């Protein structure tokens, strides 16, 4: 069978030609023949035809505009059709009747909760749209009237073991929380302050040079303007992986600025020994820049930066789809990963099997499948109780 791309290309070519108006009965006969050749052709054609029909709706956006002119992207938001949904500038600032940004954040929480219950099919969607509309109207207000002061109370988001959650922020950024993770979000007019209190998170930062996006982890800060990166907390250090753009890592020198009570934070010492033999580059300074494709391990004794092939980085982030991807990792480290995602814990009793190398992709919460594979593939014995599994040779 042809692959979906080839079929889609042909279907689009037929539709575009029919749309040209130069279309004879012979053309129609050819199209009919092509459609009857295989059902794959027909379904691909129907799929694109449905979308093309749908685009007819945009006519509504042309109202009140001189025909034949194409507005700039985004300008349609000013079309009469959308006018009623906009918030007047003044109302967004202070009006008591207008929901505050803090309400937005709370509503997001509600929608996140509602969305995970099967019965709540319609509601969360509606709320989310309200939120997006409101975020857009706030942006608009900023654009027209200049600076809008809002300073919502900080909010906390967390996931249980095995959970993943996507947290859209009111500035257009998005945080994806991995298993057993916790963040505190505080968006102020000058700064977007996030604290990763536990676990791991992936940050997609909306560009806003005037409001740096700052993630605090203990006495360190990771600062971004517009970029994508993830941070995973360990016991004594944390890992930063940058997939897009650039971030800066620094130690918090001024405890007053950080807003917490920790005192006596010291700058990172020169730690030439911390890098070890396997690290290509070691920044002993209290500050380091990380560019796209790099992974850094940050601890009190220094920052170790490794350049990674993009594939490895992707493996590292496959948790966002609910998968764990390993390349030539020891069974011990793979088991440790599974234990992060499951309340059912796996233990290795036999040190001889701990060093077995594992590659593969697994669903993070399906430890049972993983154990089955160990059994089938490596003849590892598993003894399970309700909440633990012991692996032996």
């Amino acid at each position, binding site marked *: *069978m042809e*692959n*979906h791309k080839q*079929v*889609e290309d042909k279907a*689009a070519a037929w539709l*575009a030609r029919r749309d*040209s108006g130069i279309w004879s009965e012979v053309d129609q006969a050819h199209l009919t023949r092509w459609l009857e050749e295989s*059902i*794959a052709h027909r379904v*691909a054609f*129907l*799929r*694109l035809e449905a*979308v093309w029909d*749908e*685009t*007819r*709706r*945009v*006519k*509504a*956006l*042309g109202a009140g505009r001189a025909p*034949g002119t*194409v507005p700039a*992207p985004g300008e*349609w938001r000013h079309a009469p059709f*959308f006018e009623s949904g906009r918030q007047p500038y003044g109302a967004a600032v202070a009006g008591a009747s207008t929901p505050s940004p803090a309400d937005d954040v709370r509503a997001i*929480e509600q*929608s*996140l*909760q509602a*969305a*995970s219950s*099967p019965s*709540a*099919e*319609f509601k969360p*969607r509606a709320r989310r*749209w309200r939120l997006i509309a409101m975020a857009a109207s706030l942006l608009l207000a900023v654009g027209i009237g200049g600076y809008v002061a809002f300073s919502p109370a900080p909010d906390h*988001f*967390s*996931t249980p*073991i*095995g*959970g*993943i*959650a996507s947290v*859209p922020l009111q500035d257009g950024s998005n945080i994806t929380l991995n298993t057993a993770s916790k963040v505190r979000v505080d968006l102020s007019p000058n700064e977007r302050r996030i604290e990763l209190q536990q676990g791991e998170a992936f940050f997609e930062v909306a560009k806003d040079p005037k409001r740096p996006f700052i993630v605090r982890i203990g006495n360190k800060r990771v600062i971004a303007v517009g970029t994508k990166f993830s941070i995973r907390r360990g016991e004594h250090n944390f890992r930063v992986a940058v997939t897009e753009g650039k971030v800066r890592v620094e130690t918090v020198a001024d405890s007053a600025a950080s807003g917490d009570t920790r005192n006596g934070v010291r700058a990172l010492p020169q730690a030439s020994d911390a890098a070890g033999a396997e690290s290509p580059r070691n920044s002993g300074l209290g500050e380091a820049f990380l560019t796209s494709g790099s992974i850094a391990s940050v601890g009190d004794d220094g920052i170790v930066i490794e350049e990674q092939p993009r594939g490895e980085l992707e493996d590292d982030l496959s948790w966002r*789809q*609910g*998968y764990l991807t390993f390349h030539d990792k020891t069974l011990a480290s793979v088991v440790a990963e599974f234990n992060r995602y499951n309340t059912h814990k796996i233990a290795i009793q036999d040190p001889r099997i701990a060093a077995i190398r594992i*590659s593969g992709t697994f*669903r993070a*919460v*399906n430890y049972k*499948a993983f154990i*089955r594979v160990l059994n089938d*593939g490596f003849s590892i014995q598993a003894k399970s109780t309700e909440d633990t599994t012991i692996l032996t040779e």
Partner: protein
Amino acid sequence: MEETLDDWFKREILAHEESLVRYLFRSWSRHQEVYDLRQDIYVRVYEAAIHSRPLAPKSFLFATARHLMTDRIRRRRIVSIDAVEDLDALNVMIDCISPERRTSAHQELRRLAEAIDHVPPKCRETIWLRRVDDLSQKEVAEKLGIAQKTVEKHVMKGMKLLAAALYRNEGGLPPRGEVLIAKDSEAEHGKPQTG
């Protein structure tokens, strides 16, 4: 007048594409195969519907998806450790996966306008003039000072890009604001808690 099979297919099956693709991404670890899987699933559903249209189209669509994935796993000669899709995981509750896409006309339009904003400029102008102002491809060509064949190419490309954007299915990530329920059988664990 009785609805044609094609119209039925668009309304009852294609309308679920966003959920379907997300389901495939989560159930099938070889992400590069997802769009071909989608094609095969549509073919199977359409074929079945020629004989008789299923009463519960959405469930039928997802059941077909599940069977097809199961078949593919069984057909593999060598089950490598790299491809451990496990069959249990495919038995998720479909309704947990995503809320239906039922939005108001207003929201649909916004979404469409946003999708159009994201196609390349020439392509966007073409779609706008063709669809909003109802100019023919020939008139669009004159207006933009380009060959008519080029306009046809823009239409072709625009159609594909809009399909991807409106079904939100290029790329494996869940769309912003959705909750991924990691533990399908125990959906309540997936929700974030506020504190």
